[in-house]
C-alpha cells in the first residue's frame, strides 16, 4: 500500500466516522477493505492531523482508549472535513459502468432502480460514461419470472435449449442464484432429475413455469469464481494444435496455456470436464484443428462426423 492509498482512505474515513458515531473497528475496516490493524494505524495518523497551528484544540480528537479497549471509534473536532472528496474520473466510471452492467441482469424492479441511480450519479460526475457493457442476459420475462421464483422460494420448470446435446429439455429445478461468467448470465439451480447443481444460460431459457413446490436446502452451489473448468476434479487435459484462423478459441474458452509457434500455429491446452463440449468444439473447428493430443480425445467427434458423412455420401 502506498501513502496515497492511505491518504485517500483517511479523507473518506474522517467524514464517515462523523456520520457513524461509535463505529465498530472491525466493521469499519471491512467496509474500507482493510484490516482492523491498518485501521488503527490510520487513526493514529489522524490523531496528529488538524487545523494549522497544531495546538491541542486544533487537532482531530479520537478516543484511543475506546479504540484499543472496546474496538469503538469516537472521532470529533473534525467539522472541517465533513464531506468526502469528489469522485475521480476512474472512480466515477467504475461505478457507472458497474451499474450499466446490471441493466441486463436484474429483473424490472432492479432495472428501474439502476436507471434512476445512474441519472443521479451522472449528474454529479458531469459526464457520461465512455464505457458500455452488454451482457447476454436473456429475455426480461425470463429474469422477471426467475426473480419472482427466487423471492417466493419455489421450484420452476425450464424450457431449455442446451448447448451440448442439441435437444430441448424441460428440467425441474430449485433456483439458487443468477451469476455472470465471461459475459453470459447463468442460473445456478439444483436439478431434480440429476440430483445435482447445474448452470443454465439465461439466453437459452425459452420459458420459465413456476410451480408451488417449495425449494429445499441443497447446501451451497459450486463457487462461481473464475474458469469453472478448473474446479472440476474429473477434468482431463487436452492439447489442440490449431491453424492460425482458429486462434479465437483462446479468447473464448478457459484455457490452461497457449503457445504460438513461428508459423502461426497455436498449441492450446484445455481442461475438459464435459466430453460433449469437446466433441462440439472439434466438430465446429473441423479442419482448423491440426492435431489432438491425446488422439483418443477426438474419437467421439470423429464418430459423429463419420455418421453425418454417411448421410452426405449415400
Amino acid at each position, binding site marked *: 500500500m502506498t501513502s496515497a492509498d492511505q491518504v485517500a482512505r483517511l479523507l473518506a474515513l474522517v467524514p464517515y466516522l462523523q456520520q457513524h458515531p461509535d463505529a465498530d473497528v472491525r466493521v469499519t475496516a471491512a467496509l474500507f477493505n482493510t484490516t482492523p490493524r491498518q485501521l488503527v494505524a490510520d487513526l493514529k495518523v489522524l490523531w496528529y*492531523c*488538524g*487545523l494549522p497551528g497544531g495546538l491541542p484544540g486544533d487537532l482531530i480528537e479520537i478516543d484511543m482508549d475506546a479504540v484499543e479497549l472496546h474496538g469503538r471509534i469516537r472521532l470529533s473536532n473534525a467539522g472541517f472535513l465533513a464531506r468526502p472528496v469528489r469522485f475521480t474520473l476512474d472512480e466515477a466510471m467504475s461505478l457507472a459502468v458497474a*451499474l450499466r452492467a446490471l441493466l441486463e441482469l436484474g429483473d424490472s424492479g432492479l432495472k428501474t432502480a439502476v436507471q434512476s441511480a445512474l441519472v443521479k450519479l451522472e449528474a454529479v460526475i458531469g459526464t457520461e460514461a465512455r464505457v458500455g457493457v452488454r451482457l447476454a442476459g436473456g429475455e426480461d420475462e425470463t429474469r422477471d419470472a426467475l426473480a419472482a421464483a427466487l423471492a417466493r422460494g419455489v421450484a420452476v420448470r425450464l424450457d431449455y435449449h442446451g448447448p451440448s446435446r*442439441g435437444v430441448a429439455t424441460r428440467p425441474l429445478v430449485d433456483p439458487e442464484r443468477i451469476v455472470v461468467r465471461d459475459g453470459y448470465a447463468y442460473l445456478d439451480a439444483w436439478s431434480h432429475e440429476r440430483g445435482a447443481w447445474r448452470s443454465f444460460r439465461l439466453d437459452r431459457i425459452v420459458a420459465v413455469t413456476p410451480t408451488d413446490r417449495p425449494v429445499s436446502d441443497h447446501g451451497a452451489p459450486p463457487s462461481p469464481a473464475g474458469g469453472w473448468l478448473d474446479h472440476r476434479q474429473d477434468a482431463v487435459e487436452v492439447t489442440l494444435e490449431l491453424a492460425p484462423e482458429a486462434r479465437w478459441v483462446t*479468447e473464448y474458452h478457459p484455457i490452461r496455456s497457449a503457445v504460438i509457434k513461428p508459423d502461426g500455429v497455436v498449441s492450446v491446452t484445455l481442461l475438459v470436464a464435459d466430453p460433449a463440449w469437446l466433441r462440439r468444439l472439434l466438430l465446429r473447428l473441423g479442419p482448423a484443428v491440426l492435431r489432438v493430443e491425446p488422439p483418443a480425445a*477426438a474419437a467421439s467427434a470423429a464418430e459423429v*462426423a463419420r455418421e453425418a458423412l454417411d448421410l452426405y455420401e449415400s
Partner: protein
Amino acid sequence: MSARKSERIMNLTICLLMARRFLPRESIREAVEGYHGLSDAAFERTFERDKEELRAMGVPIETGSDSVLFPDEVGYRIRRADFELPPLEFSAGETVALGLASTVWDQARVADDMVRAVAKLRAAGVEPDADRAAHLAPSLAAHEAAFELLWQATNSRTRVRFTYKGVERVVEPWFLANRRGAWYLLAFDTTRSDRRLYKVARVEGEATVVGEAQAYAVPEIDLEAAFAALEARPADLWAVVAIADGRAPDLRRRAEPIDGVAPAGRSLFRLPYSEERDPVGELAAHGADVLVLEPAALRAAVARHLRGVVGLEAS
C-alpha cells in the same frame, strides 16, 4: 507507506481547504508541521510531490493570486465547493442497486477504484446494500492485458500507441465496450485518419500512452451503429436443411419450417445465414442431426469439414 508522510499530506489538505485566500508557499511551509526542518530544496521537492499526489486523488488544488499589485506572486488553495462531493440522495431500491454494483468488477485495478468510490458514498451517508439482492452475483472481468491502460486512457482522453494486426498506430480512444465477455475499443486511428473498432484481446505487445490527458474531443457517436458489426449480421442467404425430429432447437428457433419430402424422421427448414459469419462450423457441429440439402456449395463445404474431423482420430 510512511505515517509521517500521510500526516503531512492530510495537514496540507486541511490547511489549503481552510485558507480564505491563496496561500503563498512560505505560509504553507510555516503552517504545516511536516515541512518544518527541511532545506529550501527539500521543501520545494516535497511540496511539489505532495501536490501531485493530491491532484491524482482528485483533490482540486488551485493556483492563483489575490494580489492586484503582485499578480505573479502565486499561492495555493482548495475551494470547498470543488473539493466536496455534492449532496446525493438515493432511494432504498437505488442503494440496493449501488450495493450490487459495488460487487461487479472482477478486474483488480478497476475494483480498487470501485472500493474508493463506495467508501466516498458511505462517507457521504449513503449505505450501499447488496445483501438484499443475495441471489444475484454479477461480475465483469477483463482478462485482456491492454485493458487497464485503455480503460484509463478512454476515461481521461489520452492518446495511446499500440500494434494491431502487425501495424503500429496511435489512436484516440473514444469508447470501450464489452460484448459477451470480450472488450472492444472504438477509436480514431490518427495514423490512418480513420475511425476503427479494435478487439482489445488482439492488441499485440504493450500499449503505451502518448502525451497528456484531455488531449482531444470525442465527437457525438452513434454507438449502436458503430458497434453493429459486433452483433449478429442480418442474413443474406438461405439454406435448406433437414433436421432430425426433436433435435437442434437452436437452429429451429432461427429457421422456418417448409413443406417438401424429407428423409424419414426429419423435417425440412429454411435457415437464414450470412457468408460473413461462416455457417459451416455451426452446421457441422450438429453432426447427423442436421443435413444440409441446399445450396450445393454449402453442402459440399460441410461434408469437407466433416471429413477433416474424421481425420483427427488418426492424427
